[in-house]
């Protein structure tokens, strides 16, 4: 169990985050660049001292700013940190890299057989006598992971380790880390600024912005029911359409959470001309200029030219088939979350079908 409660003044904002990660659990800290995610990992690893806070790992107090003060140095924490740079020791062979911690932390798990076993399981068994400079990016990351495994760390921190690698390699390595966390039953924290990376890894996700945790929940929950407009923006809601029945309140439209056609029982129905359309993934991404909106609480309202509110709001949607051009396109936004002008969430029964 890893418990962190971190407060730290940064130039632009005050970082303040508290969370706990159970043994074998995978938490993702998701947020834009500069939100303070990496700082949290560095505080847990002991590379930075927080202004105020505590870090407790399996009952061991690693950091405590309140008296009796405690700041365990990084080399006594048994916390593994993977960064984008695998930071292998270039003067040592792969085997020596894997066995690096054996001298400071001898015991089961660091013997020659164990190193061979770890190398084989990570698919680098044939490379143990090579120097790191000969390895590919993916192989180097496998060695870095193996080195942490052999060091028998009690918590695993991942600071966007696989940013910049190709998609299939990222998938393999992420799966590998998930296996490792399950097998070793260590708490793990991934920092990600890409939603997909966070979703692929985590079973719980904390959305961080400007140093604050805005929402903590399962990846599915966070995307389906963002707690605030800022969270919605971060997880991919790209249009916010005004609701005619409640001036100032907007409904969030996620491009993936729409179906073509009019289905008023399932959400909000929008219609308007197609402004652009391009291939995206296996389908299409179209941009619709919203002209009419139909909600359960109000009659169809025109918001186009001359209409009230934000007429001409552009709404991007992703569809399996390209909409026919030249005609108004009608689609239903499934159970859109609604937000007040101040960005807080408001539950409007009529927008959320039971």
């Amino acid at each position, binding site marked *: 169990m890893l418990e962190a409660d971190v407060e730290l003044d940064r130039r632009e904002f005050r970082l303040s985050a508290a969370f706990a990660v159970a043994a074998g659990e995978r938490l993702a800290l998701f947020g834009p660049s500069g939100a303070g995610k990496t700082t949290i990992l560095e505080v847990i*690893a002991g*590379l930075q001292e927080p202004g105020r806070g505590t870090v407790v790992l399996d009952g061991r107090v690693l950091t405590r700013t309140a008296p009796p003060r405690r700041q365990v*140095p*990084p*080399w*006594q*924490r*048994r*916390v*593994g*940190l993977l*960064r984008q*740079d695998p*930071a*292998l*020791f*270039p*003067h040592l062979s792969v085997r020596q890299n894997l066995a*690096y*911690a054996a001298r*400071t*932390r001898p015991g089961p798990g660091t013997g020659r057989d164990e190193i061979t076993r770890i190398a084989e399981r990570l698919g680098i068994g044939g490379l143990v006598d090579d*120097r790191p*400079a*000969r390895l590919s990016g993916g192989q180097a990351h496998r060695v870095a992971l193996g*080195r*942490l495994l052999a*060091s028998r760390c009690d918590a695993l921190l991942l600071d966007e380790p696989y940013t910049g690698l190709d998609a299939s390699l990222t998938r393999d390595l992420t799966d590998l880390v998930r296996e490792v966390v399950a097998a070793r039953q260590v708490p793990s924290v991934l920092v990600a600024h890409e939603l997909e990376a966070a979703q692929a890894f985590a079973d719980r996700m904390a959305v961080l912005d400007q140093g604050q945790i805005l929402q903590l929940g399962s990846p599915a929950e966070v995307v389906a029911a963002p707690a605030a407009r800022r969270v919605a923006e971060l997880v991919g809601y790209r249009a916010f359409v005004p609701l005619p029945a409640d001036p100032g309140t907007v409904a969030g439209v996620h491009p993936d959470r729409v179906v073509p056609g009019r289905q008023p029982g399932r959400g909000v129905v929008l219609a308007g001309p197609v402004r652009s359309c391009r291939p995206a993934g296996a389908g299409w991404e179209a941009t619709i200029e919203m002209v009419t909106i139909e909600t359960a609480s109000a009659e169809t309202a025109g918001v186009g030219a001359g209409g009230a509110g934000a007429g001409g709001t552009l709404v991007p949607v992703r569809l399996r088939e390209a909409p026919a051009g030249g005609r108004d396109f009608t689609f239903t936004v499934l159970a859109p979350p609604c937000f007040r002008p101040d960005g807080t969430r408001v539950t409007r029964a009529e927008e959320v079908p039971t």
Partner: protein
Amino acid sequence: MSWAASPPAQVAGSALRRTVGSASGVASLAGALVIWVALLGPVITLLTHLSWHQITTALAVPGALDPLLVSVESGAITLAVLLLLGTPLAWKLARGSLPFPRVWEAGVLCSLLLPPLVIGLLLIFMVGPFTPIGELLGHVHLSATNTFLALVIAEVYESAPYYVLGAQAAFAAVDPAIEEQAALLGDRPSRVARRVTLPLAAPGLAMALAVAWARAMGAFGAVVIIAYHPYGIPLQIWTTLQETGLPTALPFALVLLVVALPLPLAAYFWSARARGRRRA
């Protein structure tokens, strides 16, 4: 407009490029050769002006090789002093962990930029017999003028900046992220230094030490003022040249080269190999 360039123009262009490319290639090779030969020129001249007979007669004089011993001993002590005191300074400079880092760097540069003769003059004012330091040394029956100690002090002043600046560059080239991983894997700072920082900086440190050795062996400017005795090889060359002329001084020049060069060359080849292994 079509993106495809017309084939004839392309062929002509690439032929022109090849001609220009090979012409500039030949020119740069020739330039490189000229500067290389020019740099090696003095060594070649030395070898062509020396006969075996000359060398043996010059070196057969009783006590002729004493300066060699003095130079090697003082050089070795100088290296030890640089290693012990210069290495921590270089490491701190590289990591920026000293207060007012620019001031420290300027201090190191100062001894590099001052003409050695001036250093010698200033050293007299600093450690001469009538200075506080000189008096302090007098209490323990030591003197820092015209003694072996003075020779070592002069050599340290002449070679220290070469070592400290070279070592600083060597430490700066070690990626802090690698040291950070070593710490997270359980090594306290002294072990990180022993297992990661020093091995990674070693090729650069060796080169810096080799350059410092060559400087110490050839130190003359400060030495001639503060440590005229005991003779090291550079002073031996100087006095022989003054007293008996060029032909008798040349053999000692060869001795100086033979003593001063192998270590730097060995260090160079070793560090080049170590770097190559790490990169490949």
